[in-house]
């Protein structure tokens, strides 16, 4: 049979795309190589505990109808109550000599920044208003450095570092900088629209999406990898699966990533030799108490021990001086099981981890523990030390991310080359997800929706029913 659309990947962008396609009677099929759905934000069970792969925070949490999450849920016809969102209590950005708290009330961030940088109070207010009123362009925008734009507006390198620390960690494929468009999207998503956590974590959101997908009649095939995209000249006409069978469709939507999708088309991507891919080492500590009981009361803590931002690779497998702590218990109304968790994320160097894997299982495992311990020790110089309370620890690396999502080098934020229109030069083929330029969980869903609306449904609306 011939499909209207084949969707490569059942991450958040693919699931959202599949729902929109099914809602309007399109014959669509989601193809997922992994046994589970969710992609970069999936879930697993280990030693009796339930873990999320990602999900520190669901951004754009505001219940205002104009909020991005509200718009996404409306498009998918998922009631907000299904997500059981608990807003953050508060979060912090910390350097060794300064701390800036923020909450879902943007006024807190403004007053904290103004207190830490009194000379920049007016410039900060102007910036905040500028971003609040900014609407992303519909057309693709060339890269611009957020660092340069911020420096021009604020005139203070340290203040710029304070703003870049959280935004880089939540969405930049670049070292110590982020695209100016993406910075503004993230500033709106994190600081203006606020963050929350679904009670039950990513499973709650994924269950809502999967239930909706089934209700819309879109089929999801797991353990079903796409080996290549079938082309007829410059047109994508279908896919060949890992088992050799072929499927044909009018539209192919790929969430595999830009370089990965080009490779599926038989094109060799030409990575910029100067570019250094960033990935993460993530440690999940289950404690014998809540982190708040130890004084660790931030929902998310972005920190940097060095004077200047070091969101960058160093020669070692990890960069322990800079990272993120995430405590699911520091959101309202969370399940007790999650309330004892502390997640720690630091930058990892994919090349070094590849070498460690090559040295065998034992060395790889030892390296995971060693680098996780280094990261925890580093954080203990700024935050209450939770290490003596850790009952269970799981660590994942760039290798784990690559293995489970197919993203080259375990890149979480994809290629620095974003294609806002999803166009990579083949008719009938569009990118969805991270490399289309939308970020994070909510961004990925919006990306799947937007591409389906513009390139599949709008055309259908024009044609005879």
């Amino acid at each position: 049979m011939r499909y209207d659309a084949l969707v490569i990947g059942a991450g958040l962008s693919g699931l959202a795309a599949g729902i929109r396609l099914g809602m309007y009677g399109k014959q669509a099929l989601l193809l997922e190589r992994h046994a589970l759905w969710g992609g970069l934000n999936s879930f697993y069970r280990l030693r009796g505990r339930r873990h999320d792969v990602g999900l520190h925070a669901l951004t754009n949490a505001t219940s205002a109808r104009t909020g991005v999450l509200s718009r996404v849920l409306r498009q998918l016809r998922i009631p907000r109550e299904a997500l059981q969102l608990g807003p953050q209590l508060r979060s912090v950005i910390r350097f060794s000599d300064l701390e800036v708290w923020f909450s879902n009330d943007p006024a807190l961030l403004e007053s904290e920044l103004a207190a830490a940088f009194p000379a920049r109070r007016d410039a900060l207010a102007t910036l905040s208003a500028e971003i609040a009123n900014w609407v992303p362009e519909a057309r693709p925008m060339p890269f611009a450095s957020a660092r340069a734009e911020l420096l021009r507006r604020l005139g203070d390198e340290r203040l710029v570092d304070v703003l870049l620390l959280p935004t880089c960690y939540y969405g930049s494929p670049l070292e110590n900088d982020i695209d100016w468009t993406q910075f503004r999207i993230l500033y709106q998503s994190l600081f203006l629209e606020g963050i929350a956590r679904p009670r039950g974590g990513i499973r709650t959101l994924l269950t809502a999406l999967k239930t909706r997908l089934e209700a819309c009649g879109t089929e999801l095939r797991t353990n079903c990898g796409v080996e290549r995209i079938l082309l007829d000249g410059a047109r994508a006409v279908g896919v060949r699966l890992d088992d050799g069978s072929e499927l044909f469709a009018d539209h192919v939507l790929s969430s595999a990533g830009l370089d990965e999708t080009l490779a599926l088309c038989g094109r060799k991507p030409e990575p910029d030799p100067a570019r250094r891919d960033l990935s993460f080492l993530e440690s999940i500590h289950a404690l014998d108490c809540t982190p708040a009981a130890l004084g660790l009361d931030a929902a998310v803590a972005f920190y940097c021990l060095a004077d200047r931002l070091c969101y960058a690779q160093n020669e070692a497998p990890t960069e322990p001086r800079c990272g993120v702590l995430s405590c699911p218990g520091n959101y309202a109304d969370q399940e007790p099981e999650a309330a004892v968790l502390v997640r720690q994320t630091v930058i990892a160097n994919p090349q070094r981890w590849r070498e460690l894997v090559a040295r065998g299982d034992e060395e790889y495992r030892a390296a995971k523990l060693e680098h996780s311990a280094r990261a925890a020790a580093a954080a203990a110089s700024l935050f209450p030390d939770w290490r003596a309370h850790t009952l269970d620890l799981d660590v994942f690396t760039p290798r784990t991310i690559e293995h489970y999502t197919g993203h080259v080098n375990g890149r979480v934020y994809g290629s620095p080359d974003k294609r806002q229109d999803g166009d990579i030069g083949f008719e009938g083929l569009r990118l969805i997800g991270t490399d289309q330029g939308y970020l994070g969980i909510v961004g990925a869903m919006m990306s799947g929706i937007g591409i389906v609306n513009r390139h599949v449904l709008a055309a259908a609306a024009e044609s005879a029913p």
Partner: protein
Amino acid sequence: MNDSDIQIAIKDIIAQIAPDEDLSQLDPAVRLREQIELDSMDFLDIVMELRKLYGVQVPEADYKELATLDGCVNYLRPKLAGKTLHCAARV
């Protein structure tokens, strides 16, 4: 089928797209977007629902005809002639 049925059928569609809006106070002569929060994605859905439920085709050039409830009724009257409308909002 009369004009008020058409209006109810449209409100039904909007209620499905934007379940949290209060549609009881809508002024049929005033632009929908000035009264409730509808973005271009929601608007596409109104068109898609009309197509799905009634087989009605609305080319993009005609979207502007749907700006108000009155506009919707005028534009859709000939297209919906003889069709059975789903009017859950009335019951």
